[in-house]
């Protein structure tokens, strides 16, 4: 619980809150990229180097840019008229209640003082070895799933042919 953690967590939370509250959709997408960057640096801070860089590549490099593309393709650069106040209030109330329950559970649960093994880190070589030996089946399944998702996304987003009879 040191200063770096507070700074990184603050950047992440501020980015996420801005992404959910700003009016302009492009600003929302940029704030979302900031939140994803904060999460990636949190991974780096926690010692998961490969996962942090993968997070930066996949989320900031691909998903945030994809969201900007979709915003521009749908010409929805501005959110519509504001949502009805009771609806918005109930949604926020549900989220605040959820956070209250989670925070209460976290603060009141008995976490055994785990012996944190400082300095130990998992190298990319270890990750690759494990992926190719112990986790070969999940890896293959993820590969098949990504291929199926890619083909499905292309088919769904493809322009439909006009039925000319």
């Amino acid at each position, binding site marked *: *619980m040191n200063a770096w*953690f507070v700074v990184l*967590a603050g950047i*992440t*939370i501020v980015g*996420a809150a801005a*992404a*959910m509250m700003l009016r302009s*959709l492009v600003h*929302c997408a940029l704030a979302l990229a900031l*939140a994803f960057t904060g999460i990636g640096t*949190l*991974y780096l801070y*926690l010692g*998961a180097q*490969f996962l942090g860089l*993968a997070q930066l590549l*996949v*989320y900031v490099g691909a*998903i945030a840019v*994809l*969201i900007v593309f*979709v915003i521009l*393709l*749908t010409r*929805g650069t501005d*959110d*519509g008229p504001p*949502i009805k106040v009771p*609806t918005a209030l109930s949604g*926020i109330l*549900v*989220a605040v209640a*959820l*956070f209250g329950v*989670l*925070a209460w559970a*976290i603060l009141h649960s008995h*976490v055994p003082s*785990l*012996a*944190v*093994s400082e300095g*130990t880190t*998992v190298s990319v070589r270890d*990750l690759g070895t*494990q*992926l190719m030996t112990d986790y070969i089946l*999940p890896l293959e399944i*993820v590969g098949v*799933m*990504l291929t199926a*998702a*890619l083909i*499905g*996304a*292309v088919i*769904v*987003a493809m322009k*439909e042919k006009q039925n000319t009879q």
Partner: protein
Amino acid sequence: MTGLTGCLLVSSLLFSIGLAGALTRRNAILVLAGIELMLNAANINFIAFWHFGPHSGAATGILFGLFSIAVAAAEAAVGLALILAVYRHTKSTDVSQQL
């Protein structure tokens, strides 16, 4: 307050922000962004429990997070394609309007 508690609090706050956004925003793209934030909050928990766990020499937590990121990427691609397809029919990405 240990480091693990701080990580869990940050991730639950992130999850709540994502849930609030997914429930209150009208634009389908932002609803999807809220869902992405919730997935990321869950991912932070994996890494936090791996880092503060007794066996941080094992790569289990990182590998679980890696698969989770792959699934989230596939979900985002399909979700955005669906939003594009819906937009082509209704000329709108407003989730609150009736089709």
